[in-house]
C-alpha cells in the first residue's frame, strides 16, 4: 500500500537523478594527508624516554612501555623466553597476587598485557581516562616488581605446551615455522615459538634474570596517548612511579648475521591436508633501507589487496585459491618479502607457476602508470584509515620510537610513497622479488602433491612435527 502511494513521486525523483552520470566513478579530490599530533618528549634521569600525545576524541588513555628485549634476545637454549616473561609479568608482583592485579585492572576499566615481538618487548595497556593514574601505578608495579610466582610459572608452561600443540594443528603455523627457519638461518629471528624442550628449561630464575638484564629504564620507551591529565601532572605521575627504577648497562643485540638467499624447496608433509600452503620469498629491505619505499610499493602491486597481480591472477582469473597475496615482514634488522597462497591439491603445479611467473614479471618489466597511481592511493588511504583509532595511532608512534625510525616517519610516509618511480620499483624487484634465489615452503599432503613440485627443483620432504 505504502509503495503504491508514492509511486508518482518516484517519477519526479528519476528526472532529478538524471543529472548525475552513473556511467563512471564520480570525480573526487585527492586523498588528504595524515596530520601528526604533537608529541611531547622528555627523559627521566634514569634514562627512561617518555612521550606524551594528547588525543581528546574519546575518554580513553593508551599506554605502551616498550623495551629493546624482543625474542631475538632469548638465550640460545631458551627460544620463547621473552614471550613467556611478557605473559608472566602480569601474573603477580611482590605486593599483588594475580587475582589482585586482575581485579584492580577490571575495576578501573583497564587492560594490561605483555607481548614480545621478534625485536621489542611491550607492555600494552588502555584505561578509561579518569583512571589513568591508577593504571600507571599498576604498570610500574608489574614492570619493576613482578615476582614470577612458582605456581603461575608452572601453569603458564603447561598451558603454553598445550597451546603449542594446538598451533601445530594449524597449517599456517607449520608453514611459517619452516619458512622462517630457512630464510633466517642461524639468527634468532628463525624461530616463531618456544619448543617443548625450551619450555622445560624455563623457570622463575631464568625469568628474573631476563627481566633484570633487559627490562631496565635506559632500555625503555614509555608512551601515553589520550585524554591525559595536564602535562605537569602527567609527568609528575610518571616520575612518582618510575624515577626509583635503577638504570643498568644492557648487553648488545645479537649480530646481524643472515644467510645468503638461495633456492631451496621444502615440502612439509601433513597427511590429510585438503589443500597446499605455499610460501615463496627471501630476505629483503628494512624500513630504514633506501630500497624500502620502492619495495613497499612494488610488493603492494604484486600482492597487496584485491587489485593486486597475485589476487587477480591466482584467485580471480584462475580460481586456484581464495587467498593469494604477498607480504613484507619488517623487522628491525631484516625484512622478508613472501608470496603466499593456499590452493587445492590438484592445482599445485600451475599455481606455483603462476606465483613464480608474477614474481619474475615484477623484475622483468616496469609497472604501468595506472597500477602505480592506483597503488599509491591505496597505500595512502589505508594508512590514513589505519590510524583512526587511539590504539592504532599509539602502536604506530610506538613503532617509530622502538624501531629506530625518523621522527617524521608517520607524517612523511605518504609523501615518500608518492615519490616512488617505476624504474626504482623494477630495480628493487630485481633485487628482492625475482624468484631465482627464493626459499619455497609448501605444506600439504606429500602423497598428493610431491610429484607436482618436482619441476621446481629438488624437493626436500619433512614430516610436520
Amino acid at each position, binding site marked *: 500500500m505504502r509503495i503504491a502511494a508514492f509511486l508518482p513521486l518516484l517519477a519526479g525523483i528519476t528526472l532529478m537523478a538524471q543529472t548525475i552520470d552513473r556511467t563512471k566513478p*564520480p570525480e573526487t579530490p585527492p586523498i588528504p594527508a595524515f596530520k601528526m599530533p604533537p608529541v611531547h618528549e622528555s627523559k627521566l634521569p634514569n634514562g627512561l624516554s617518555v612521550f606524551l600525545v594528547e588525543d581528546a576524541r574519546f575518554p580513553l588513555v593508551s599506554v605502551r612501555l616498550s623495551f629493546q628485549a624482543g625474542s631475538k634476545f632469548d638465550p640460545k637454549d631458551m627460544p620463547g623466553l621473552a614471550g613467556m616473561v611478557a605473559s608472566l609479568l602480569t601474573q603477580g608482583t611482590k605486593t599483588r597476587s594475580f587475582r589482585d592485579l586482575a581485579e584492580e585492572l577490571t575495576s578501573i576499566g583497564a587492560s594490561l598485557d605483555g607481548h614480545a615481538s621478534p625485536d621489542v618487548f611491550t607492555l600494552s595497556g588502555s584505561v578509561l581516562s579518569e583512571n589513568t593514574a591508577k593504571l600507571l601505578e599498576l604498570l610500574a608495579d608489574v614492570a619493576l616488581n613482578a615476582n614470577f610466582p612458582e605456581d603461575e610459572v608452572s601453569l603458564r608452561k603447561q598451558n603454553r605446551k598445550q597451546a603449542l600443540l594446538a598451533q601445530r594443528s594449524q597449517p599456517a603455523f607449520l608453514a611459517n615455522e619452516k619458512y622462517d627457519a630457512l630464510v633466517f638461518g642461524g639468527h634468532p629471528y628463525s624461530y616463531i615459538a618456544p619448543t617443548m624442550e625450551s619450555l622445560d628449561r624455563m623457570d622463575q630464575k631464568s625469568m628474573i634474570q631476563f627481566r633484570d638484564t633487559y627490562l631496565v629504564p635506559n632500555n625503555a620507551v614509555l608512551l601515553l596517548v589520550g585524554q591525559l591529565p595536564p602535562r605537569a601532572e602527567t609527568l609528575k605521575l610518571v616520575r612518582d612511579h618510575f624515577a626509583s627504577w635503577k638504570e643498568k648497562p644492557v648487553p648488545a643485540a645479537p649480530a646481524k648475521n643472515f644467510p645468503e638467499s638461495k633456492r631451496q624447496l621444502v615440502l612439509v608433509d601433513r597427511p590429510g591436508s585438503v589443500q597446499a600452503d605455499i610460501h615463496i620469498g627471501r630476505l629483503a629491505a628494512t624500513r630504514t633501507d633506501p630500497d624500502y619505499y620502492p619495495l613497499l610499493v612494488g610488493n603492494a602491486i604484486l600482492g597487496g589487496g584485491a587489485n593486486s597481480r597475485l589476487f587477480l591472477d591466482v584467485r580471480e582469473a584462475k580460481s586456484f585459491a581464495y587467498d593469494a597475496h604477498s607480504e613484507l615482514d619488517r623487522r628491525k634488522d631484516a625484512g622478508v618479502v613472501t608470496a603466499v597462497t593456499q590452493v587445492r591439491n590438484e592445482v599445485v603445479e600451475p599455481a606455483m607457476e603462476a606465483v613464480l611467473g608474477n614474481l619474475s614479471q615484477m623484475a622483468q618489466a616496469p609497472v604501468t602508470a595506472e597500477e602505480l597511481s592506483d597503488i599509491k592511493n591505496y597505500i595512502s588511504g589505508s594508512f590514513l584509515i589505519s590510524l583512526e583509532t587511539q590504539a592504532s595511532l599509539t602502536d604506530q608512534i610506538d613503532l617509530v620510537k622502538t624501531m629506530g625510525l625518523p621522527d617524521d616517519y608517520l607524517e612523511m610516509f605518504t609523501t615518500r610513497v608518492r615519490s616512488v618511480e617505476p624504474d626504482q620499483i623494477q630495480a628493487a624487484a630485481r633485487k628482492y622479488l625475482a624468484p631465482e634465489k627464493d626459499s619455497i615452503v609448501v605444506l600439504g599432503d606429500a602423497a598428493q602433491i610431491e610429484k607436482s613440485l618436482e619441476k621446481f627443483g629438488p624437493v626436500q620432504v619433512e614430516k610436520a612435527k
Partner: protein
Amino acid sequence: MKFALIDSDHSSAIPQAAQPVIPIEKYTLNNGMRVILSRDNAVPVVAIYMIYDVGARAEEKGRTGFAHLFEHMMFEGSANVPKGMHFKTVESNGGTLNGSTHPDYTDYFEVLPSNKLAVGLWLESDRMRSLSITKENLDNQKEAVKQERRLSFDNRPYQTAIVDRWPELAFQNWQNSHSLIGSFEDLNASSVEDVAKFFKTYYAPDNAALVIVGDIQIPQAKKLIEDYFGDIPPQPKPAKPDLSEPATPTPRSDVYHDPHARVPAVLIGFPGPVRRSPDYYALAMLDILFTGGPSSRFQLNLVKGKESLIQYQAEMGWPFCSSTDYKNPGDYAMFLLFKPSFTPQQIVDQAQEEIEKIQKDGVDAKELERARTLLRSERITALQSSLHRAELLGKYEILDGVPELINTDLEKFLAVTPAEIQAVAKKYLTPERRTVLQILPAPPPKENH
C-alpha cells in the same frame, strides 16, 4: 568530536557519563530505503555500511550456503561497474572494503578517505540497482567459495564441527540448524535463476539500510544519497522464514572426531532469552562474570584454580553472533579448549558447577560493579572506529528498528541487578536445557609412504 553526557535519571549505579553520545540522523527515502547519518569530523575518514535484511537463515532446502554465495556475487560487477572494478575502484581511492554473511543479515562496507564518499555511494547504488548476474561470474564465485571453505573450515581444527555440526545440535528447525557455509553439492546446484530471484526478492532498497559515519557534511551527504539511490524501485516485502524452535528444549549431545585437532574441546550451549528482554540483558552480564576480562570466574577458577581450561570463548549467539546481533531463536554458548588430562565430562561438570554457584550463592555487588566497568570500557573503546559505529547503527536498525539504541542500550546492561542474574542462571542454564558437543582429536589419516 563533541560529547554530550547521557542524562541518566533512573539509577545511581550508572555513571553520569556512561559513554559518549553518538549523533544520529535517521530518515527514509521514498523508495523505502532507510538512511542513518552520523557526523564526526575528528579524522578525515568515512565508513559506508549497507545492511540487507536477509541472512543464511532465509535459505531454502537444497540451497545451503546460498546467502554467502550471493554475497560473493555482489563483488562481480554491475551495469556501470565492470567485473573486477568494484575492488579496484575502492582501493584506488584509498579505501578498504568487505562483505559478510550472518544468520539474520548480510552486510557490506567501504571505509574511505572522507572526500571519497561519492565513490562508495556510486558503487553501492549501482550494484543494488543493476547487479551483473552471469553464469561465468557464478561459476567463478562457486569455486571461490569452495576454496574459502577449504581454507577456513575443512583444513583447520574445530571449524567444521562448529560451522556444520554445532547448529544441527543446538537447533531443531532446519532454517536455524543448516550449515551457513553450505555443502559443495548445494553450491554446485545453484543456478543463475536462483541468484536473480534472490537479488530481486531481498536486495531491494526497502529491505536495506544505509549507514554513513564519519567526516561528512549532512546536507551534501543527503543530496548524494538521493541522487544515487532515490530512484531504485522498491519491491514487495519478502516473507519472513519461520524460525520457531520447539518450546521445550531437550538435552542433546554428540561427539565429533576432528582429524586436525590436537587438543580436545567442548561446546556447551543453552537456548537463550528474547533479544532485548530483561533476561537478555541479565544473561549478557552473567556472561561477563563468567568470561569477561582477566578476573572472570572461568579465568580465576578454571584456567587457574582447577587448571583445566586452556582457552575459552562464550557469547550470546556464539559462534555466529554476539550480544549486539543476537536474534531469536538464539543460544548462549561457550567453546572450551581443555587439557587432555581431563575428560570432556569433567569439563562440562566444571562449567555447570560455575553456573550452580551463581544459582545458589548469587553475585557479589563488587564483582558486578567490575563487570559493568569492563563492559563500559570495552564499549567506548569499540566506538572509536567509525566502521564499528556504522555497524552498530545498522544492526540496531535492522534488528530493532531503533538505531538510537547505540546511545541507550548500554544503560540497560549496566542496570542489571544481582537478583536478575541469579534468576536467569536458574531459568536458562540448567542441564535439562543443555546441548554439548565434544570435539576430540582423531588419529591422523593413514600415511601413504
